[in-house]
């Protein structure tokens, strides 16, 4: 059990972090000119028209040196190579599994991308319909997403509960260098895995459903108030109060 926990922590470090204070960043809308001149390079969520760089998404503006990009504030999940996601098995074929990762297309996990010996005659022995797995996006192709399980911490998820949030709020849930999710983990003593596609898996180490619900409430609180300052502290207070209530009962 302990080993498992270490693995999941390692997972989060590789994920997207909040680099700057969001409060300072500007909100831009599609069609807005965000930079002019040849000194800037158009990044994600932007396009170039003559000398102007124009936002093509609704989100927060981020300028790093010369690169200008827009980080979306809302919307559906768009898969990217290297994302750790949580998916559900929707189909089992002869050479792999079709997995729903809440993206525009279904993702495919080939047998080749799994660890260990697999009996090819019956793939349902490994993962079967409706199983939840934590997996990594290996490649994104024009009309398919390919997954892999060949990495530390990627596994089938058993028990626990699943919370669906907006994928753009995921960096908030993780917090700077994983600080937010660590707070929730420590206070509720739950094992939490945050998928970049907006699925969050929670399981209490003590098999206590009440604590899982508390963790879920904390996550919903973060999603509702993403722009609050000192959110980590607030969540900590909230969790401590909730845990106190639980202990009294």
């Amino acid at each position, binding site marked *: 059990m302990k080993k498992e926990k270490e693995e999941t922590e390692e997972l989060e470090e590789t994920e997207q972090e909040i680099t700057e204070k969001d409060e300072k960043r500007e*909100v831009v*809308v*599609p*069609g*807005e*000119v965000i930079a002019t001149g040849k000194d800037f390079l158009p990044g994600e*969520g932007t*396009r170039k028209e003559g000398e102007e760089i*124009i936002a*093509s*998404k*609704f*989100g927060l503006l981020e300028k790093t040196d010369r690169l200008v990009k827009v980080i*979306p*504030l*809302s*919307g*559906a999940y768009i898969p990217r190579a290297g994302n750790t996601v949580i998916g559900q098995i929707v189909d089992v074929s002869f050479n792999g599994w079709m997995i729903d990762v809440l993206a*525009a*297309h*279904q993702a495919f996990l080939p047998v080749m991308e799994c660890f260990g010996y697999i009996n090819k005659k019956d793939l349902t022995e490994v993962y079967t319909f409706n199983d939840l797995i934590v997996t990594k996006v290996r490649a994104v192709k*024009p*009309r398919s997403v390919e997954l892999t399980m060949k990495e530390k911490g990627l596994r089938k998820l058993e028990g626990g509960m699943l919370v669906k949030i907006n994928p*753009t709020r995921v960096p908030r849930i993780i917090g700077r260098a994983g600080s937010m999710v660590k707070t929730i983990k420590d206070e509720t003593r739950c094992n939490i895995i945050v998928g970049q596609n907006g699925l969050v898996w929670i399981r209490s180490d003590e098999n206590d459903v009440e604590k899982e619900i508390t963790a879920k409430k904390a996550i919903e609180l973060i999603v509702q108030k993403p*722009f609050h300052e000192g959110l980590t502290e607030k969540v900590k207070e909230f969790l401590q109060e909730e845990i106190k209530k639980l202990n009294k009962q």
Partner: protein
Amino acid sequence: MTKEEKHKRPDGRDIEELRKIEAKVGIIKNADGSALFSFGGSTAIAAVYGPRTLHPQHLQNPETGILRCYYDMTPFSVSERKRPGPNRRSAEISYVTMKALEPVLQIENFANTVVDCYIMIIQADASTRCAGINAASLALANAGVPMKELVAAVSIGKTGDKIVVDLSKEEEDFTIIKDGKEIKAATDIPFAILSKSERISLLQLDGKINPEDLKEAITLAKRACKKIAEIQKKTLKKIKEE
């Protein structure tokens, strides 16, 4: 213009004055993006889902993602109950809305997928399709769909021989009495423009107008659309203050 002439519109508005505009985003929790937009008594809500895989498969376009629009009025939105479900009018408006929004979308990278946009009129008082397009434009931006720019729409028209902006139902039904007969003398032009490039993406005409007046109407509409685009921008930016 004298004061008397100015107040000739039924609700006392100036010829270039828009009705009270209300706009909100993120009103429907389960949608990927949603918005409300109202012109006085005309209120539209829009919900956007996707990009998601398109079914049935034969409708899929392997070259690009597609946009589907559904426009409908709630039965209680008009004074006489509207029979629920699609009809000829709503099919036409769905189509022109789709054509008005399509040029701004950048969904070429989402082959075989669809972006669904559902527009519901919850209260109707003329120019509902314009309110619908404005709401849909906000909802698409709110859904994080890549877009070149926003779309702003307004209805422009003629009541008698006056060109006015943002017609109300009363103005749309404007009639004059000629030779003892009551004849319709109102012209309604739904108009949509892309916020940055100022290209026209919707222009319909219901009634009669001569070319000179149409040109003037378009300049007025462009000015009104700029105001609407500003409101759309402000609405989207408000998200941070909440």
